[in-house]
């Protein structure tokens, strides 16, 4: 059975449905990109998959004995975090929270996990630095390292490259691709359709009242992709 199976799922916020009757499945090892215009419910769908919201209608079935503790999440940054006094190490370690249960302190395995994650993302030299003094790209790496610590099976990413320059964006995409190659299932919400077709194995394209779901190959030859590319040409000032 797939990790996630969505059956006629409708998601929305404040009582208003935005994406309706979605049917798709996420299998172990997939790299799914959720794309679409603003306000079509991409982030809301991701939050629903993370159980931060419940679907307004339909069912989300989880398989392979998936637990909350198998999931990692990289949310969009909040205002609140921008001046938060915390070191990189403190934040990355908090990713291990879902493994400690009632234990009050991190054990050596968890500390090592955090250290490895920081090394993997090249932020181990920043461990003692304050989060609010880092650049946008560095902050995003810190949050990704935290998400990696939490993720055993699935990694949810909500627009991970927003506000980053092209070089840092490229690096981050490569890191995520590597994680996926090492067996982690990746579900990413993105504005960046070019990156989606470049890296993802599957694409979910949501637009008003309809959606497309399929492999990247299928998506490239689909109407949704052509339409979106044309629209992009006319709406580039947006």
């Amino acid at each position, binding site marked *: 059975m797939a990790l996630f199976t969505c059956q006629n799922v409708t998601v929305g916020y404040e009582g208003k449905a935005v994406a309706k009757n979605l049917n798709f499945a996420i299998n172990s090892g997939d790299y799914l990109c959720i794309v679409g215009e603003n306000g079509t419910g991409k982030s809301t769908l991701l939050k629903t998959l*993370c159980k931060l919201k419940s679907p307004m209608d339909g069912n989300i079935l989880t398989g392979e004995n998936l637990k909350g503790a198998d999931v990692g999440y990289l*949310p969009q940054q909040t205002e609140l975090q921008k001046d938060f*006094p915390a070191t990189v190490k403190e934040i990355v370690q*908090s990713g291990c*929270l*879902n493994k400690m249960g009632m234990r*009050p302190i991190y054990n050596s395995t968890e500390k090592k996990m955090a250290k490895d994650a920081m090394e993997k993302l090249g932020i181990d030299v920043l461990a003692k630095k*304050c989060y609010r003094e880092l650049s946008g790209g560095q902050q995003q790496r810190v949050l990704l390292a935290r*998400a990696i610590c939490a993720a055993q099976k699935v990694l949810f990413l909500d627009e991970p490259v927003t506000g980053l320059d092209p070089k840092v964006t490229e690096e981050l995409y490569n890191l995520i691709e590597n994680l996926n190659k090492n067996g982690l299932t990746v579900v990413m919400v993105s504005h960046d359709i070019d990156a989606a077709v470049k890296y993802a194995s599957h694409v979910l394209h949501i637009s008003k009242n309809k959606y497309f779901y399929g492999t990247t190959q299928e998506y490239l030859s689909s109407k949704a992709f052509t339409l979106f590319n044309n629209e992009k040409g006319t709406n580039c000032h947006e």
Partner: protein
Amino acid sequence: MSNIIDTLALYMGYPFVRYALVVGILIALCSSLLGVTLVLKRMSFIGDGLSHVAFGAMALGTVLNFTDNMLIILPITTITAVVLLKSSQNAKIKGDAAIAMLSVGALALGYLVLNVFSKSANVSGDVCSTLFGSTSILTLVAFEVKLCIVISIIVIAVFIFFYHKIFAVTFDEDFVKAVGVPANLYNTLIAVIMALIIVLAMNLVGSLLISALIIFPALSAMRIFKSFKGVVICSAVISVFCAVTGILISILASTPVGSTIVCADIIMFLLFSIIGRAKEGV
């Protein structure tokens, strides 16, 4: 100088002064620990609102002739704290407006109830001392001191035991929820501890000045320290130091205890701000 020491030594001989110091230190410690979380979660005003609710509850308790007001203040404040925290997540009335409404409402109703029903000869005096805590800390009895010690130990133990969880929930609630940790449970825990601290602190600085005790040490510490742990430890030290200094000065200079402690906190904040600026400039 020896004069001052003599005077202090004389006062230390009185149990009520020793009680005041013990209670003052404990409350300062507890409120500063939680203050960091509240300030960072943008919830400093919840402390203010709750303290007014506690005042309203106290008024109700006085009028209903409860032998121990704690029995009514504690549950009402705790329930309000939990409800406020829950409702701020998905309410029609936005969080800050709900708190402001409750805060002013409780204050007004409390005063009204006291005025209309109280049998005391000096209502304004009573109200003044509850709001500004002018004398209550110097009139503590042994039982209240013991209660304070027990509650403080609970608060400190809970904080240390759940330190990493409290940090994570403060930094990013959504993340904590998404990775399968019961964030709501920890939020409720924070709300309950907050209510406990506020009820305790009413004795020391009075309900109007509780926010100062919660907010100032955290803000001062944040000027200089860059890690969560550093901020927590520093704000605890600042808070205890200011409480002790404030109490001693108030004894020597016969000033109101609560206001004197808050003044010490304000001076500390200014000091830390200047140091923080200077450090950034380097």
